[in-house]
């Protein structure tokens, strides 16, 4: 790891100021992606701004029919939160299956969503549940947030302060893990909310995406039978030694059907 200057601000405002003042600064929340990257010397930030002491970013609360999760909330907290389990059990389930227990004890929802790794789990939930991402400057709708591979609508120095998930009538997340890393090779989040049905796929492409054909079919009939003939073209999907694009396309169908079945249970 290259050395850097370390900062531990106590407020969002201080953190944002530091990030804006130093163009080569990086924010660290859980550090589950950043620290391994730094260890491999694949990045050389001048400054690291640790959000660990920013108290206002943590916590889970209910606001009307929404679950609002602070950006620095750890995966383990989401997985075990009584409020999340009651309102959106699928979200708790998803959080409980990110990485391993030690990663869940450090990794945060804000960090994961801001990083937008193509194989991350949370983006599936954010898009399928049509969540709203709140930053220090604005609110961003899920569909506007994820822009591409590791790319989001966040501007430089903009921090996720919380994410608001509308309660789902039915929802489930099914993940097919990469056998080695256990990252999502394909993860499908299916949600039926007051606003309609959404099917979001993570892991399969460069960025989370929705499957409109499935959404339309499920809107009419929320059963796995309704989507059994809907296939996803392989073009443009990710391909590596663990899964060809064709295989990933196939798994999207399988995981979507299983997610619908799980949501109906």
């Amino acid at each position: 790891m290259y050395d850097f200057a370390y900062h531990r601000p106590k407020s969002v405002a201080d953190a944002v100021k530091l990030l804006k003042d130093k163009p080569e600064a990086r924010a660290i929340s859980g550090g589950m992606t950043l620290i391994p990257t730094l260890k491999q010397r694949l990045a050389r930030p001048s400054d690291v701004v640790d959000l660990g002491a920013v108290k206002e970013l943590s916590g889970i609360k209910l606001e009307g029919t929404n679950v609002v999760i602070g950006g620095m909330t750890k995966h383990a907290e989401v997985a075990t939160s009584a409020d999340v389990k009651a309102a959106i059990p699928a979200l708790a389930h998803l959080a409980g299956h990110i990485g391993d227990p030690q990663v869940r004890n450090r990794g945060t929802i804000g960090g994961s969503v801001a990083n937008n790794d193509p194989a991350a789990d949370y983006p599936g939930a954010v898009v399928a549940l049509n969540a709203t991402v709140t930053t220090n400057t604005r609110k961003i709708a899920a569909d506007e947030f994820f822009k591409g591979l590791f790319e989001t609508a966040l501007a430089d120095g903009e921090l996720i302060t919380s994410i608001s998930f509308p309660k789902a009538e039915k929802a489930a997340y099914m993940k097919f893990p990469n056998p080695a890393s256990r990252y999502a090779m394909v993860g499908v989040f299916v949600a039926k909310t007051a606003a309609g049905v959404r099917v979001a796929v993570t892991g399969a492409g460069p960025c989370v995406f929705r499957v409109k054909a499935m959404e339309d079919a499920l809107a009419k009939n929320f059963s796995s039978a309704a989507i059994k003939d809907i296939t996803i073209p392989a073009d443009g999907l990710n391909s590596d030694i663990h899964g060809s694009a064709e295989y990933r396309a196939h798994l999207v169908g399988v995981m979507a059907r299983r997610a619908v079945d799980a949501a109906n249970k």
Partner: protein
Amino acid sequence: MSISVAMTVNGKAVSGKVEARTLLVQFLREHLGMTGTHVGCDTSQCGACVVDVDGKSVKSCTILAVQAEGSKVITIEGLAESPDKLHPMQEAFRENHALQCGFCTPGMVMSAIDMVKRHNYQLDEATVRRELEGNLCRCTGYHNIVKAILAAAPAMKSAGV
């Protein structure tokens, strides 16, 4: 960048001057000479470095020493009451032959204790196997590790640890 860092390790206040990039595991091993915590990989997957920070098991190779400022850290060296009185999890590992070369063992034991507590001393085989996702062992085939953790859960409960 040199920074002062202070924390409690195994009940003892410790402090030192570190570079910002110093990992917690480096602080433990190189600054404090506590070499029980091991490093087995560089991609945060093997779990040989697991320690307890403020009641949560974490990978000490994926947290900066400065991030643990003010924390209470427990390592493998801090578990046994005395050389002759092992923690029930250590005892169960020994009783069930859950270690061979011993390299993954410290992290394995730390993860196992955390697992038992999180599941309120109630575990089944499938849960134990799933919860060991963050710890690799190349010797034991996990069979006896699973047995040991299942045996330790009630022992920890009755020992009140």
